[in-house]
C-alpha cells in the first residue's frame, strides 16, 4: 500500500513538472534587466535568555529561585592584554517582536531632496513598532577575572538595568554601502 502511495506521488510530481514546464517561456536580456528582486521578508521572533536560570550550577550560578545565586548569563570582555574585564552579568529575560520587515528598496525621491541625489538601492529593515520586553535585566560591572570561579576574583557591580513592558520603536533602518561605488 505504502509503495503504491509513493508511486502515485511520484507520478503526480512528474506530471506537475511537465505542466509547469509547458507554461514557461524564455526571457530575453532586455526583459530580464527590467526585473528586480521584489517582495521581502517579514519576521517575528522571541528571544529568551536564561529566564529560569542557565545550565551551570556552582557556587556563583544557580536557579533563579535561589536569591543567593545569580541565574543570568555573563559576558566578559577585556580591552588590555592581562588587564581586568568589563562584564555584563546576570543577563536574563526575554523580548519579542512581530513584523520586523526586510526588503530591498530603490530610493530616488523624498528625503527633502536627498532621495533624487542618492538614486540607489538600500536594504530596508522595517522596525516592528513595538517590542514587548519581559523582565529583561542586566548588571554592568567591572571584574578582575573573566569567571567568578577564577582565583583572585573581585567584582564591582556598577548598575543594574530592568526593563519590562512595551518599547516603542517605529521607523525604517536603511543600510547601504558608502564610499565611491
Amino acid at each position, binding site marked *: 500500500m505504502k509503495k503504491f502511495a509513493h508511486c502515485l506521488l511520484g507520478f503526480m510530481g512528474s506530471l506537475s513538472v511537465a505542466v509547469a514546464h509547458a507554461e514557461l517561456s524564455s526571457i530575453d536580456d532586455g526583459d530580464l534587466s527590467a526585473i528586480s528582486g521584489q517582495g521581502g521578508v517579514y519576521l517575528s521572533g522571541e528571544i529568551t535568555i536564561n529566564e529560569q536560570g542557565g545550565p551551570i550550577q556552582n557556587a556563583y550560578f544557580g536557579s533563579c529561585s535561589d536569591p543567593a545565586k545569580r541565574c543570568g548569563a555573563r559576558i566578559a570582555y577585556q580591552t588590555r592584554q592581562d588587564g*581586568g574585564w568589563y562584564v555584563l552579568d546576570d543577563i536574563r529575560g526575554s523580548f519579542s517582536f512581530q513584523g520586523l520587515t526586510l526588503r530591498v528598496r530603490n530610493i530616488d525621491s523624498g528625503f527633502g531632496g536627498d532621495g533624487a541625489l542618492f538614486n540607489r538601492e538600500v536594504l530596508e529593515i522595517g522596525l516592528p513598532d513595538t517590542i514587548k520586553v519581559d523582565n529583561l535585566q542586566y548588571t554592568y560591572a567591572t571584574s*578582575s577575572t573573566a569567571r567568578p570561579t577564577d582565583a583572585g576574583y573581585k*567584582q564591582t557591580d556598577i548598575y543594574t538595568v530592568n526593563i519590562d513592558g512595551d518599547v516603542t520603536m517605529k521607523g525604517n533602518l536603511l543600510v547601504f554601502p*558608502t564610499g565611491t561605488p
Partner: protein
Amino acid sequence: MRVKNKKLLLFVPVLAFSSLASAELATLSDDEMSTVDGAGIGLVLEDFVFDHGDDQANGQVFKITGIKSTAASPEDVEITVSQLYIARADSNYGENLNPVNLGRLVNPFQIDVIDGATLGIGNKAVLEMAAPTKVPFAEGYDCLSSSATAGSGTCSSRPMDLGAGFNGERPDLGLKLGVAVGSKTPHNVNINAKSAVFDGSYLRLWGDDDRHQLVAEYKLNFYTPELSINSCDPSGQNCGSTIYMKNFELELALGNRFQPMYMDVNGDGNFVFEVKAIAHQYMNQLPSSGKCDAGNPCSANAQAAYDFFKSYYENDEFRSNLRIGNMTIGDINASGKDFGSARIEGMLIQYLKVTSHDLAAP
C-alpha cells in the same frame, strides 16, 4: 541512484544560469577600478520614533538599581527612567511623538574601517563609528537655528520644515528620571534637548602595540537651541524652576592621535580611564627658553620637538569647547532670571586618569 539523479538535475540549471549571468557582466577598466575604495556601511533611520518609560500601573518598568547613597548608613538608590524618547523636533518635551529622520542619505551615520595612515595613526586599521560629517559652509546649515537654510553653517543635518512636509534630521531628545534614595519621597529630574544635532561626532578604535590595549579617540559634538533641566514632584505636574540653556554647543575631544584614550579594568575590578600624556621623543632636548626661532637656534631634534608641540597647541581639533548662548533660570517666558552667556573655549587635556573605587568594599 535517486540521490545521484537529483544532483544531476540541480547541476544542469546552475550551469545554464551561470552562462546567462556571465553574458551580463562587463570588465572594469583600470581607471574605473581606481575609483573603487573600501566602502563602509551607511545607516539612516527613516521616520524613527523611540519611546519607553516607567509606568508600573500599566506594566511598564524601566529602572536602574545597584547604586548606594554615601550616607553613614548607605541606602539603595533607585533610578526610574520615567521616559526616554527620540522624536521629531516639535515634540513639546516628549508630549507629541512624531517621526524624525536620523542621518542623511548623502551624509549618513557610518561604520567604516579606515587606513590609520590617513588619520596620522601609523600603520593601523582604525574602526570608526561616525555621525554625519560637518560640511563646507556654502552647503551646510546653521547647527543651532531651527529654521536654518542652506549656506548658513557647517552642519549637514537639516531642521524640520513642516510646510514642505519634511521631518528633518534633528530630533528632540528627552530623559525623565525619578531618583529615590531608600524610602524617601522620590524626586523627578527632567532633561530635554530640542532639535539636537550630533554632526561631526565620531568614535575611533584601534590597538596599541606597546600596551597591548584597545585605544580610542572620541569626539562628541552636541548642538541644541534649547537644553532644559528641571525637577518636579513624583506626579511630574508641580515643577520647580527650570534651567534653560539656549543655543547650547558642546564640542568635546577625548583622546587624539598623539594622546589616545585608554579604557581598562585594574586588578581590583575597578575601571581606569586614561588620556595619555602628551610627549615627544626629543622633548628633553628643548632649550630652557622653550623657543626655537631665528634668535634662538636649536638642534634638529629640538626643532622637531618644538615644531611638534607648536602644531599640537595650535590645532583646534584637539580642544574642547562649551558655549551657552544664554542661561535663564525660572520661567523663560515670564520672570526668569537671566544669567547671560557662558563660554569655556580651547580646553586641552594634557593628561587625565580616572580610577573608580568601590565604596561598598571593606
